[in-house]
């Protein structure tokens, strides 16, 4: 074929993302509800979010266990009945317990809205935490834990969080085998009463929303009231570790897990959109510098990436990879070299265009369809932000200049302040 016929099509600028409006209202008991109408199929996504994450723990594992036990038996249904009914109505239930928030997400055909709300109320506000189910869960979780502790990447990230946030803070505490034996139902029910309350809750609905949703939400959830309970809150002092480099010896492993990073600003900070772009350049996508250098140039690893995460009390950035032991030292040196390069040499115009356009495309994907829309909404709502955050990010993607990226790299990637965790055989 004639080469000349295969001319590269013109790259058109990706159109600016248009985010559909969110409708909001409150239930009779003042629970906020957010609704995003989107999609072509008669399906819905319903999320109940509570400020009941890891950060509220006064006892290791209590937040995740409380969350996982929600569907293990309620006042009106046994665990088996609840799970059978959810399956019978074709409902997908995700229980989520993260560092700050916890809750449930349900995916279902819109026509089943009423049944789903009835079961959700049982799960969220009438759980009974039965002892046999708790024993089974903790046994199971202990098995998972033991398997996870065999994996270098899990050992590395657990140690990384401890180094960043301190072993006594829920963000950084590493669980131990004994922790799985200590939890009793009354502690779960105390935690539940304190944190799974209407005052602590928000509801997020998206999809092709059933026209009775508002009315039904009010009738199932609008008359629930919060109860006062006195249990001790979590210790909320973040304390970073003085030791910057930690190696954990894990004999007989063929790869070493590497985690390098530190605490940083979160979404509420005006520099965050710029930092997000810097993070992309460094390791946030397939064409990033770390991927190109460590995987595509040197073939040291199957994958390397960097990421930026916002938490309520702080934020963190981390570079993650698994490499063969013999290439570990060189990989780490190269990671620091790439950071120094960003601090000293402005990103060239061509690379800036790639990152700008890739990220603009990402923004289109972040608002494509009812599920993506809900997740994007939630990840700003959590920080008290609204869609203006995304418009600022979209604007920054187009306007940021290479000098600003260089400055951000200097400000936020001080190499002396980075933690370095490695796990592998010595």
């Amino acid at each position, binding site marked *: 074929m004639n080469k000349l*016929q295969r001319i590269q099509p013109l790259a058109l600028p990706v159109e600016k993302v248009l985010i559909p409006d969110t409708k909001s209202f409150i239930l009779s008991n003042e629970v906020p509800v957010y609704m995003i109408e989107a999609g072509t199929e008669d399906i819905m996504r319903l999320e109940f979010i509570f400020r009941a994450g890891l950060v509220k723990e006064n006892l290791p594992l209590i937040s995740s266990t409380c969350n996982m036990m929600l569907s293990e038996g309620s006042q009106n249904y046994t665990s088996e009945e609840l799970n059978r009914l959810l399956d019978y109505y074709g409902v997908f239930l995700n229980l989520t317990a993260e560092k700050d928030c916890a809750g449930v997400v349900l995916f279902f055909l819109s026509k089943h809205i009423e049944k789903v709300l009835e079961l959700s109320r049982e799960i969220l506000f009438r759980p009974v935490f039965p002892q046999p189910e708790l024993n089974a869960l903790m046994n199971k979780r202990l098995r998972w834990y033991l398997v996870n502790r065999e994996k270098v990447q899990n050992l590395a990230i657990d140690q990384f969080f401890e180094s960043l946030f301190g072993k006594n803070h829920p963000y950084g505490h590493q669980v131990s085998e004994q922790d799985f034996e200590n939890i009793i139902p009354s502690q779960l029910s105390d935690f539940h009463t304190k944190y799974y309350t209407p005052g602590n809750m928000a509801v997020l609905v998206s999809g092709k929303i059933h026209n009775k949703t508002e009315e039904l939400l009010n009738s199932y959830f609008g008359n629930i009231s919060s109860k006062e309970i006195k249990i001790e809150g979590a210790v909320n002092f973040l304390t970073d570790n003085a030791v910057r480099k930690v190696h954990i010896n894990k004999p007989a492993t063929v790869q070493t897990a590497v985690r390098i990073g530190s605490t940083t600003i979160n979404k509420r900070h005006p520099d965050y959109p710029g930092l997000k772009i810097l993070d992309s350049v460094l390791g946030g996508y397939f064409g990033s510098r770390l991927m190109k250098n460590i995987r595509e140039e040197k073939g040291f690893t199957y994958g390397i990436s960097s990421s930026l995460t916002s938490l309520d009390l702080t934020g963190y950035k981390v570079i993650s990879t698994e490499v063969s032991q013999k290439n570990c030292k060189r990989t780490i040196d190269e990671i620091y070299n790439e950071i120094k390069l960003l601090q000293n040499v402005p990103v060239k115009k061509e690379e800036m265009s790639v990152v700008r356009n890739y990220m603009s495309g990402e923004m289109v994907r972040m608002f494509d369809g009812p599920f993506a829309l809900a997740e994007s909404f939630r990840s700003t709502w959590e920080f008290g932000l609204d869609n203006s955050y995304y418009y600022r990010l979209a604007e920054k993607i187009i306007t940021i200049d290479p000098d600003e990226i260089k400055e951000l790299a200097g400000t936020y990637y001080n190499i002396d302040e980075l933690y370095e965790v490695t796990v592998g055989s010595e």
Partner: protein
Amino acid sequence: MVNYRRFLLENGLRVLVHEDKSTPLIAMNLLYDVGSRDEDPAMTGLAHLFEHLMFGGSINITDYDTPLQLVGGENNAFTNNDITNYYLTIPSENIETGFWLESDRMLELDFSPKNLDTQKNVVIEEFNQRYINQPYGDAILKLRPMVYTIHPYRWPTIGMDMDHIKNIDLEHVKSFFFSHYAPNNAILSLTGNIGYDLALELTQKWFGPIEKRAIQPRNLPAEPLQTEERNLTIEKDVPSTALYIVWHIGPRNSSDFYTLDLITDLLAGGESGRLYTKLVREKKLFSEINAYLTADIDPGLIIVQGKLMKGVDIQYAEESVNEVIKGLQSKNGINDEMEKVKNKFESSTVFSNTSILNKAANLSFFELLGTPGLINCDVENYRKVSHGMVIEAIRRYIIPSNCSTLKYISTRNEI
């Protein structure tokens, strides 16, 4: 309902188009009818390594990823026993860049020696990360050669031996390309914000001029009928003992595929599945247990795998699994459970079809099976399964002479 239209280019490329105007994006899925089953037994892992090489530049384009990122696109690919599948999503205004990129690497690759060396290392690290450096990661490597004696499914997609990967040279790579990568061995699906006419025009423009190639005929040895039970026990320093029980089934196109799929859903579809209810919840023999079909095009497998609770006798655990499966033949409560898994299947199909990428991948795969219409009658086929069919399938497949068992014993002092 997923409405779609098909057309065939003169060079043999099959094309399917489904328009969905609710999204600003287009998904493009290009399936090549080549997988690890098409490999030389002395050079396993080549199909998957080849997938990596497809990103290293083509005849007119030095680098695949950058121009795609430059127009806001994102892409990935996977290889399995049967197929190699490449996919991307892109804002619709820039779809032509997708055509330019995909057609160029179908036309010819760059075949750079440096890229080959690098990607061989990347694949070896992938092997280490997924199969060696994970507890139980090598179970599937042990299972396959026990279950398949001559069919190429006896080796994993990544390759049975990393020495095979090390020995691959550029000549092997080139010959693999010209005998498997061609318009007449590929299926292109386009879904999302693209109309039929534009799809047709762009496909003609970019793929039309690529000539047909002589595809290496597929002549795979059929796996002989298994006639007696097979057992393998290995001991490893892992946290708990694991059990894998496997039975042969028919090919993806066989009439009882949906029955078997429904059986695995009765057994392990969610927390209300029978295996979970009976063996995790009630008898507390396992900490987790799962059942699934491999869904291969050639005769595949049902796999049940679970991790045992401490102190449980593995023989007893194995018998209990069999008892639960046999229990599906009893009428007791079965109708409600069948209705439940059918509802769940329907719901999960509706959810899967909200994604343009899933729709594109499904259209390509079902076209490969010769039945693109399956995208709309999957649910109907599944709903047709009766209890009689379940009983019949269990009698036919869940028998000792068709069974292989891997006992993965923990040598650790159990906690």
